[in-house]
């Protein structure tokens, strides 16, 4: 059977799913957590607690900011607020965070901590939307987009399909895969909740063919839910990018500058689905997530259920390992789109899907040579752009030229830099062009 996929572009980095067979383990509690306020896409949240306040697991500690795109933040531990101070984030820049000293593990009474599956959905679509917003749910695929905004359907902008992203196309990462294997029933109820919130009758779950057991398990379970379909997809990066996923499943292309809702689709990650299930059915805010801890030189790898704000060092300790000799890069996220960290002592955020330790043999970039106009970058770009041209224009600061060449369409997947035979830093300059084009557009709007 021919597997579906998106036709344009794409590359095949080695999968390296080293932690695929490690079941999810709950990580113990740290001594203190640092929860950043700029935790998600959009405006940072505003803290509503002060030094000395006592909090429980699930207590609201920050309300969403004034802007439309923002989210609530809840405490992931019980204890005392130590201070609200600037804490280093992944790139070394410091930003405001709430630092809580952990005391015990007391949860808010309203949260249902039982493990039973709650299948009956008691809330109306509007109430579900409010619940998602209240509980601070953001996209756990890595983009951390506040999820409630995706469900703001209307008669002018309706949705007809819910797409669940179970693809996990980035190498090394296995948190979604393990969640699908270990908690399929909850995921499927979560899908029902989301279908009701978006007022859709159809849901499609895309899973890459390199996870056959997950596909089989979910295909059997999904039979009791009419309208939900599990679709195996060809293994190709970036299959998990939402525009490419919609193209592969429904053959619809989201137009430039528009969102999936404009083609009638709502896309959410598997991890977000679980978080929505817990938020709506168990009244539990987003306070923990599954993080993959991996690396070729680690003797053991793991998938951990981690409380938000836990220092990354705890994950290594839980594996019983020290940082391997020769570690030269620490990546938060996947190796294709993730961020290289300044140190390992960074708190886990809602968007941390994995931590990868790279050895110095894997790390140095080749010296860039000259563009030989081989056009390989064009053939692998999933958005149909011309990376070699965008790099040339961005290098000479021709931002109007970049705008004309649709640099804003770039999803920053990295396929171009990955492929280039001359090892040109294509994506570096494209990002530079993108930021400046957005600045130009903002300046034009203000005039």
């Amino acid at each position: 059977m021919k597997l579906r996929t998106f036709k344009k572009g794409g590359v095949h980095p080695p999968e390296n799913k080293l932690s695929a067979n490690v079941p999810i383990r709950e990580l113990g509690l740290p001594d203190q957590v640092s929860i950043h306020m700029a935790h998600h896409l959009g405006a940072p949240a505003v803290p509503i607690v002060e030094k000395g306040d006592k909090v429980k697991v699930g207590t609201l500690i920050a309300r969403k900011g004034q802007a439309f795109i923002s989210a609530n933040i809840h405490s992931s531990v019980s204890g005392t607020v130590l201070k609200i101070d600037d804490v280093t984030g992944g790139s070394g820049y410091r930003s405001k965070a709430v630092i809580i000293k952990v005391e015990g593990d007391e949860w808010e009474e309203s949260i249902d901590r039982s493990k039973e599956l709650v299948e009956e959905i008691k809330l109306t679509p509007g109430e579900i939307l409010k619940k998602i917003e209240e509980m601070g749910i953001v996209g756990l695929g890595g983009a951390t987009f506040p999820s409630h905004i995706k469900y703001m359907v209307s008669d002018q902008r309706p949705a007809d399909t819910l797409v669940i992203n179970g693809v996990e196309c980035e190498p090394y990462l296995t948190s979604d895969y393990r969640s699908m294997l270990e908690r399929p029933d909850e995921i499927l109820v979560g899908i029902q909740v989301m279908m009701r919130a978006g007022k859709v009758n159809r849901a499609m779950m895309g899973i890459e063919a390199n996870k056959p057991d997950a596909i089989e398990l979910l295909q059997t379970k999904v039979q009791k839910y009419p309208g939900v379909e599990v679709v195996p997809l060809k293994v190709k990066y970036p299959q998990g990018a939402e525009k490419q996923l919609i193209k592969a499943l429904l053959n619809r292309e989201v137009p430039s500058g528009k969102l999936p809702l404009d083609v009638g689709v709502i896309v959410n990650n598997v991890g977000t689905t679980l978080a929505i299930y817990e938020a709506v059915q168990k009244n539990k805010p987003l306070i923990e997530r599954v993080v993959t801890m991996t690396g070729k030189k680690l003797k053991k790898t793991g998938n951990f259920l981690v409380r938000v704000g836990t220092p990354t060092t705890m994950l290594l300790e839980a594996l019983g390992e020290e940082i391997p000799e020769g570690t030269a890069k620490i990546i938060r996220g996947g190796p294709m789109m993730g961020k290289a960290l300044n140190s390992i002592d960074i708190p886990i955020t809602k968007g941390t899907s994995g931590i990868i330790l790279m050895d110095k043999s894997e790390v140095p970039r080749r010296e860039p040579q000259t563009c030989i106009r081989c056009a390989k970058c064009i053939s692998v770009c999933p958005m149909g752009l011309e990376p070699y041209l965008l790099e040339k224009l961005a290098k000479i600061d021709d931002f109007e030229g970049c705008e004309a060449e649709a640099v804003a369409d770039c999803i920053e997947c990295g396929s171009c830099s990955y492929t280039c035979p001359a090892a040109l830093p294509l994506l570096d300059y494209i990002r530079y062009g993108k930021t400046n084009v957005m600045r130009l557009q903002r300046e034009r709007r203000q005039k």
Partner: protein
Amino acid sequence: MINNNRLVVSFSPHEKGELEIEKIMWGVVIALVPAFAASVIFYGFHALRVVVLTLIFCIGIEYLIQKFILKVKVTAFDGSAAITALLLAFNVPAGVPWWQLLAGSIMAIGVAKMTFGGLGKNPFNPALVGRAFMLASFPVQMTTWPVPVQNLWNLGADAVTSATPLGILKEGVRMGKTVTQLAGDLPNYVDMLIGNIGGCIGEISVIAILIGGIYMLARKIITWHIPVFYLLSLAGFTGVFWLINPDKYADPLFHILVGGAMLGAWFMATDMVTGPMSIKGQIIFALGGGILCGAIRLFGSYPEGCSYSILVMNAFVPLIDKYVKPKRFGTEVNYGK
């Protein structure tokens, strides 16, 4: 700092694919080996002499220019100078003297490539520029083709020369003979496939070139569009006229197999640096090239038009790149299923 090593911070992606410039270039050189073998089989020592000398000249000139004149990093051994050398050598007759090869190499590498900035910056195919220069400057030696040698080790200079099939055709038609009358002087298809014909040392054996071409396709160094559309448009153009007047014009199959068409379609037109960037653009490039080649062959004063057709289309490439863009994602408003 971790274990006294500094952590590396860079932009994503943090993985790198396997493609490298050197691997691509030497892949093309490997693809040219069958044509090289055919040249040695049919022209013996002379072909070997031409190829080795051009290789030394081209790589040497690039090395000297980079090291002593421009004082930049030396990349003469990355394979691109070798490709230019081989293609230039394959485009000359076996009897060309060494100093003309030197002049051609200086033109190809020094002028057509290095003055524009080196690899990746030249607008015209360097080997073809070298050949065009040699043809204009040394018309006698560049149009004197030794007969293929019967003995591989025949080191003596063969005084016997003949014209290429295209030359015979052009001259014959000009003198009023019909194609059927000339058929006896022209080689048959089998000879053209194998290479037992007069011509420049690399263009004679179609099979050798095809083997190289298929190798490059398998290794994804080139795509099929340019060679196929170039040959199709050449066949189409010459075919139209052959249908109108088969006495005056040779059949399209003859045209595809003879002269520099095969070598040009598979190795010269597919040069990455001087070709268009989008698939649609490459098709336009190839169609234009094939038609031009046919036009020069049928109506121009030169018997062979392949090199000029590609050089002219090279001049159009910036224009093609400006207006023929790849299709962007999100422009198709298609609601499938």
